């Protein structure tokens, strides 16, 4: 497995764990997670930030371990296939992010407010990033003819 594919897998797993906790909590809270943004409810943003930092730290540590094991391959610059796969991942994720931002910025304000909009925006960001890394994994697994 290519070093960059391993990193994409690690990132996907870390994202599922970290944001699974956050959005799981949002769903479990029900109406409490959809109300107005108040000082008392800002802990949700702190939770999101803490999980993001924890996820990034886990990815950094795992990447370091993988790079020490991979040796030269980890130090090698991305070749043309790595770059093509990364470009496709970004292109696919762009459409997800664009759709998410249209929903959050144009559609949702007519029928929702407060935390529902905030969480929808966070979900769009997380989903776009997830799709980017998933597209990278698929690019390495299934092949790339671009």
């Amino acid at each position, binding site marked *: *497995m290519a070093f960059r594919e391993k990193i994409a897998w690690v990132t996907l797993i870390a994202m599922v764990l970290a944001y699974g906790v956050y959005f799981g909590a949002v769903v479990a809270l029900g109406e409490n997670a959809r109300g107005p943004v108040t000082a008392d409810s800002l802990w949700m943003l702190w939770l999101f930030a803490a999980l993001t930092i924890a996820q990034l730290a886990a990815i950094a540590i795992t990447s370091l371990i993988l790079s020490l094991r991979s040796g030269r*391959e980890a130090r090698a610059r991305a*070749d*043309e*296939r*790595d770059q093509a796969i990364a470009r496709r991942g970004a292109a696919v994720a762009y459409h997800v992010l664009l759709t998410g931002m249209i929903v959050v910025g144009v559609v949702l304000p007519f029928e929702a407010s407060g935390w529902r909009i905030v969480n929808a925006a966070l979900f769009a960001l997380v989903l776009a990033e997830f799709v980017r890394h998933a597209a990278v994994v698929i690019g390495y697994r299934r*092949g*790339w003819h*671009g």
Partner: protein
Amino acid sequence: MAEAALRNQIRTLRFLAGEMTQAELGERIGVTRQTVAAIEAGKYSPSLEAAFRIARVFGKPLEEVFQWDDSADPAAPPREPRQP
């Protein structure tokens, strides 16, 4: 996934070049071993520059290393009959 229309003889040419490894070939053309493996397996179509570099490593013209398979290309135009 559509079948690749680009075929190649890299595996055979590596064997004939003293069983050159994928890593050695990758190092000489500036790509990773995994990318050479993907090219060989038809999972990745290399850039024109990489294709020429591969051909130069083996000292062969490009069309001896890579071939276009019309039967696997649904967009291929009908072939013109060859002039005598």
